[in-house]
């Protein structure tokens, strides 16, 4: 029994959250829905760990859905990269679900809460599906599942602006998904296959054709829209700012990461590094992301709403990941994959703190956060430590990412890139310090309501992520090990 069950883990990983989502609708009980979401998230985390162990022990896992042989049937493929990204998604999901009830109950009307958990489970399933599938079209299906449900999640935000933010995201997200599927369609036209491994074998023969280069362009722009690539990131700041707090934390830590994963998958597994010789898309990405890391960090400095401030910071941070991709080197990709994990820990922690702040004072504007250091000491200490990680102070994960990114730039002899990365992290000091000064140096207004620290069920998940920021900043064995193994696999060309 156990043998057969462990052989089906890849399918269970997606099916479990997918079938649990309708269960929440059937129960129509808020508490029960939360419990289902919580249990499913933690089970998925367990499965991710098991899968990662299997991959480390025995190499990539190929799972044929319904036992239909690839490339005709849908193949699920778990390798180092996808196992690592699933670990990111499920760990952030599990931690946010512990945090969720208080925050969700205070921000979302009571009659919609079970729908929130339904949509969360669908997003969760979609993200895991994107990560695990080995089929380019199936990836589109999961992309749509996760996108449609995340539009709903964002629109659940308390302010009316959440609706326009969600609508804007819906328009641009749909354009992105359509571009992606056009690209996949063109590839199918030239190769007659949708299986990624199969595509990788057939594409080199037609790689120089205009159709394939156009396909690459479509896919890049399509996924670029989803991952918040500058300058098609415009949906992101509002979506993050107006979504319910827990949603922001979950999406910021997972959705853009999975989109970056997709880009890595398409570029390095499907197309292979040779495609950059035919179409210098790496240079194109490099220039865009250099503009992103400097300009978006600069824009973040002038934000008044801390959620939006961190949203701009996210666009800049995604820029770091894309710079790593544009290096097309093992060190560069290691930096990218590492930062997927590290940035998830950083932003997850920061947005959970903001959720806690919103839970107490119903605002995340800088001026309203004045003096919170005294009344919410543990939350604010978490904010400071996670912020250090964002800046890249040594002994935090942010430092580890930056180390590899700069090392990658120096290996290439890209001095200006190294310089711009450092300048961007100095800008991060400025925007982060603005918040710190408000929290610790300003005093709370006399007429402000008396508030207390948030309950322990919110502090524990927050500090779990902060702890991860520090633990994985000191003991880098797991993260660097997995990231460099995945990078070597991608650059080696082996699918």
């Amino acid at each position, binding site marked *: 029994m156990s043998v057969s069950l462990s052989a089906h883990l890849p399918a269970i990983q997606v099916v479990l959250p997918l079938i649990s989502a309708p269960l929440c609708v059937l129960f129509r009980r808020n508490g029960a829905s939360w419990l289902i979401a919580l249990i499913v998230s933690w089970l998925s985390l367990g499965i991710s760990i098991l899968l990662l162990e299997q991959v480390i022990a025995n190499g990539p896992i190929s799972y044929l859905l319904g036992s239909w042989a690839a490339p005709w049937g849908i193949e699920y493929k778990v390798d180092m990269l996808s196992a690592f990204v699933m670990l990111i998604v499920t760990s952030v999901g599990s931690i946010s679900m512990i945090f969720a009830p208080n925050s969700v109950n205070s921000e979302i009307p009571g009659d919609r809460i079970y729908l929130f958990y339904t949509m969360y489970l669908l997003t969760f399933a979609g993200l895991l599906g994107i990560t695990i599938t080995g089929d380019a079209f199936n990836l589109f299906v999961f992309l749509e599942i996760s996108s449609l449900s995340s539009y709903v999640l964002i629109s659940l935000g308390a302010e009316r602006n959440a609706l326009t933010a969600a609508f804007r995201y819906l328009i641009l997200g749909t354009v992105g998904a359509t571009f992606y599927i056009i690209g996949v369609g063109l590839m199918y036209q030239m190769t007659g296959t949708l299986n990624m491994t199969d595509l990788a074998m057939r594409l080199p023969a037609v790689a120089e054709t205009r159709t394939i280069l156009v396909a690459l362009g479509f896919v890049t722009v399509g996924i670029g829209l989803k991952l918040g690539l500058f300058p098609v990131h415009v949906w992101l700041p509002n979506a993050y700012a107006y979504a319910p707090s827990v949603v922001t934390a979950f999406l910021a830590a997972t959705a853009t990461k999975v989109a970056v994963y997709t880009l890595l998958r398409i570029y390095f597994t499907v197309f292979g590094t040779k495609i950059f010789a035919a179409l210098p898309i790496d240079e194109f990405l490099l220039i865009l992301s250099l503009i992103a890391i400097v300009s978006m960090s600069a824009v973040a400095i002038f934000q008044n709403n801390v959620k939006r401030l961190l949203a701009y910071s996210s666009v800049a941070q995604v820029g770091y990941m894309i710079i790593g991709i544009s290096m097309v080197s093992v060190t560069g990709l290691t930096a990218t994959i590492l930062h997927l994990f590290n940035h998830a820990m950083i932003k997850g922690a920061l947005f959970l703190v903001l959720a806690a702040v919103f839970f107490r004072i119903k605002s995340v504007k800088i001026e309203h956060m004045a003096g919170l250091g005294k009344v919410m000491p543990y939350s604010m200490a978490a904010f400071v430590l996670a912020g250090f990680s964002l*800046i890249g*102070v040594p002994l935090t994960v942010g430092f580890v990412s930056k180390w590899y990114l700069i090392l990658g730039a120096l290996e290439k002899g890209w001095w200006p890139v190294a310089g711009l990365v450092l300048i961007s992290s100095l800008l991060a000091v400025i925007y982060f310090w603005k918040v710190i000064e408000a929290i610790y140096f300003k005093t709370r207004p006399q007429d402000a309501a008396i508030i207390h620290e948030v309950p322990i069920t919110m502090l524990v998940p927050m500090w779990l992520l902060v702890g991860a920021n520090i633990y994985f900043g*000191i003991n880098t064995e797991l993260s660097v090990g997995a990231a460099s193994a995945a990078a070597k696999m991608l650059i080696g060309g082996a699918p």
Partner: protein
Amino acid sequence: MSAENYILWAIAVPLIGSIGILLAGKAPNIRETITLITAVVMFTMVGALIHTVVGGGRPSVTLLEIFPGLDITFTVEPLGMLFGLVASGLWIVNSIYSIGYMRGNNEKNQTRFYFFFAIALASAVGVAFAGNMLTLFICYEVLTLCTFPLVTHSGKPEAMKSGRTYLGILLSTSIGLQLLAIIWTWHATGTLDFKAGGILDGKVSGIAVSILLFLYMYGIGKAALMPIHRWLPAAMVAPTPVSALLHAVAVVKAGVFTVVKVIVYIFGYEFLANSLTTNWLVYVAGFTILAASIVALRQDNLKRRLAYSTISQLSYVIMAAAILAPLSVMGAVLHIAAHAVGKITLFFAAGSIYTAAHKTEVSQLNGIGRKMPWTMGAFAIASFSMIGVPPTAGFLSKWYILMGALEVEHYFAIGVIIISTLLNAGYFMPIIYNAFFKEADDKNYPHADHGEAPLPVVIALTATAIGTVLLFFFSGLPLELAHQVVGK
């Protein structure tokens, strides 16, 4: 216990102590007792290493591997030994002083103050004992961050503004330049270990050496080379014990210590001497010495005058190391210790005057020597050390720096030392003269009726003043350590 254990405990004790300080926050007497005990135990742990290090041992302990092939390692060598001894030894005296000062001035948030102080000391000794550049960088950054709450202790708008300057300059130089230099070094050599003779020889050449040296020298903002010195006067907004131990000893010495360490163990001074494009450092340091002294002359605020004097004295160390003669490198090492004892005394005196008389300006100090003979006596002795008058520690280090400069016939450096000695005398002697020989002119001053500062303050400043003289007569240990740094 083995030497390796002493290293770990020297860093762990202040960290454990800091937790104790937090727990005892409600009971000031217990809290201060914990601080004192922590300081004494820490000094004992550091001191226990002397025997091994002087005997030629280089005890080393590796904690963990951060990146493949790159560890957090602590290794004690002579230079770090000396810096560790100075920082931890003066912490004991400074803790006694702090008790008098913080209570005498009714400062708020004293628990936070002692807590971050203990962490600052742990990171300073971490810098001293760092076995490779990455470990040093980590401790260096922690030192910056944990001293920020000390600089902005009062929480007033001006403290906040100074805090921004402090953090802004120190973080932007270390992240923007030093980190780049470190990763470059790692990329070029595949190691960041401190090795006698350096690690860069044969790995970089030509103009790149000069650029790398620039990145290091201006990346080490704590050494306050002009024009990145402004954070140091800004930091004077902190309570005086912070200025005394951190911004005259631990933090700034961590800066010049790192400079010497980089020149001796990363570049190797023979390698630098053979590179033609790196002699600019002597001139920049020489300029800083003179310019900072001239600015000091014009400061009326006592602490700011001392701060500019510190900037000038720090560049003595940088210039001495940059002359690249073995004797001057020894002088640089000695000056780290000599300036530390002298300058902490001067700050103690400044704080003592503030506590007893509530005076902060040089122009208010006429005749104060008669009311505060101990304070001003100590001030005078420490001033002599700054100028380099025997029998004080400052004479010793200046002597070696001059000998080194003469040996390689570096006339610019010799000229700078002579002129700056005159300038030092120019901004210290009038204070002493006015304090003892002029009549007090503050009859209408509300605090005119004052005596000496609280006893702990007087004890502390007397102790360091005596130390300044003792270091001249009993210079065996520092000399031996300095000898070992240059390999005789």
